[in-house]
């Protein structure tokens, strides 16, 4: 380990100025939020029924969305990393779409697929009597839509880095494809799965644009924490700031406790 004193070549001084500005840009707004908040009244504000409902809903939907990301996105990442199918590059680019698409546009797209008039929505309604839009399920779908790329991209990268050599060796030892996947592939990328899940969860917790377009803002049903902040910001600024601080705390917990690899620069 190289700790203090290991570095002998100097850093160019000019890097310090933009570096400090960048850090300030990240940290100062949060400080501003804390300064603006009414700390004495904070406990009351964040235990208001609206805030508690929103927190409960956010946690539940984000957990389900994260599980969906793993169950659906994990296999997709394996296929992208290992399959030799033609046209894979196009698929890989498509997976990135939710990452660069404005979430509002994603929400609209979901609405016109699963809404009353959309062909997916019609199909579901006629077959099962299901209506997705403006339901908690819609919240989960919107969150999964925007969070999935974080898992797929990170996991695919890890699979490519791990390479197929271990898998080839396992095969020569007599392990069939399923055994290789279970006993070699998955354990090798376990850290990447962990950090991918943390990022998915954080992204799902913070989801706003796609949710409000596709699921609306119904208290207790689709109004997650970010939507609660948005609603309160127009009527009750103190509460909005308090709930925002709650989201800041959740984010810091995600970073500190789970410590995703991306945070340590090793994604």
């Amino acid at each position, binding site marked *: 380990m190289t700790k203090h004193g290991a570095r002998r070549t100097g850093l160019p001084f000019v890097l310090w100025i933009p570096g400090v500005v960048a850090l300030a840009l990240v940290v100062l707004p949060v400080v501003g939020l804390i300064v603006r908040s009414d700390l004495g009244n904070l406990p009351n504000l964040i235990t208001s029924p609206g805030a508690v409902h929103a927190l409960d809903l956010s946690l539940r939907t984000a957990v389900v969305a994260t599980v969906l990301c793993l169950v659906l996105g994990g296999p997709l990442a394996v296929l992208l990393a290992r399959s030799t199918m033609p046209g894979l590059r196009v698929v890989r680019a498509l997976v990135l779409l939710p990452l660069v698409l404005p979430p509002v546009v994603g929400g609209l797209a979901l609405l016109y697929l699963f809404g009353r008039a959309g062909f997916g929505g019609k199909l579901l309604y006629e077959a099962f009597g299901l209506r997705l839009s403006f339901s908690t399920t819609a919240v989960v779908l919107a969150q999964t839509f925007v969070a999935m790329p974080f898992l797929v991209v990170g996991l695919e990268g890890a699979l490519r880095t791990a390479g197929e*050599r*271990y898998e*080839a*060796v*396992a*095969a*020569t*030892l*007599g*392990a*069939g*494809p399923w*055994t*290789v996947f279970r*006993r*070699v592939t998955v*354990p*090798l990328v*376990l850290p990447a799965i962990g950090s991918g899940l943390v990022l998915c969860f954080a992204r799902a917790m913070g989801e706003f644009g796609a949710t409000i377009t596709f699921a609306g803002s119904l208290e207790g049903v689709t109004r997650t924490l970010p939507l609660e902040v948005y609603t309160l910001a127009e009527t009750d600024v103190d509460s909005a700031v308090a709930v925002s601080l709650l989201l800041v705390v959740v984010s810091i917990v995600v970073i500190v406790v789970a410590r995703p690899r991306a945070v340590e620069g090793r994604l």
Partner: protein
Amino acid sequence: MTAVVAEVELRRGEFRLDVRVEVGAGEVLAVLGPNGSGKSTLLDVLAGLVRPDRGSVRVGDRVLVGRGVDVPAHRRDVGLLAQQALLFPHLDVLANVAFGPRARGVRRAEAERIARHWLSEVDAVEFAGRKPAALSGGQAQRIALARALAAEPRLLLLDEPFAALDVDVAPALRGLVRRVLSSGKQLATVLVTHDPLDALVLSDRVVVLADGRIVEQGPTKQVLSRPRTAFTARIAGIDLVSGVAAADGLAIEDGAVIHGMRTDDVADGDAAVAVFQPSAVTVHVDQPHGSARNVFPAVVAALEPHGAVVRLRAAAAPDGPAWVAGIAADLTPAAVADLELDLGERVYLAVKATEVAVYSVAARP
């Protein structure tokens, strides 16, 4: 009994591999060749990691590759030990070695008993509880060998197994592999290497591969001590000049003669080669006048470390014979310093006739 017969044809862009190899039960076949000669591709085909365009692979009475047959790697009973140990980093040593038996469906306790047996075969029982990250390269490679053998392969493939090891670790491991392989009576082994020493220590027979084709094959000692092509000689680290057998040695195209000791089976006019060791070649800055019968001008093309000595590679001098190109001479570092040798410098190479063996390479019925 022939345990393995493989005929492989495969094309990858410009590269074409077209070989036929046979390995007997209990036999070690070495495949020698430079990088890019196709030896690793041949192993991948045998292991089932690459599918040949045409050909067949048979192990015992089982057809692994053939008309409409392509047995996947995990059902082949073909083990692989590569240059890197590739121990699964998330499993400890015992679990690594037990991986093969476990994959076959053996219960955990029995699989671990088998693993301990193979660990003791490679003198590595004390590492059973360690993670691969806590092993040295040589230790990891021993355990990788145990892991490959614990899966009970019918055919074992060794792909440059010592190339990544420190020079002082490789000999011990080479000896260990020799001991372990000689105790497996039924196991057929294919060893891919570019190091003639690996082949000499471990193998019974050798095939020499160049550009995807076999250029020479036969019993290891014979092929490496009496190469028939300059290519094999270079791999074996021997100097070889081809020409036609003449009264007192070997006549070369330009009319010059290399004086040497003719073996009995050579007749005048036969296609023949003159072979000598690089250590038998002396290097002079000025033209020597001594007992050495063979003296020829050359230019220093390369100086490279070769174990404890420095190997000089010659190129043809402007006024000298062309066949000198590629001839190697071994010198001590002190001699290189004394002679103040530099690249491009003109030198005279001398070899005593008694150090030169001339033998026939004519095809005989």
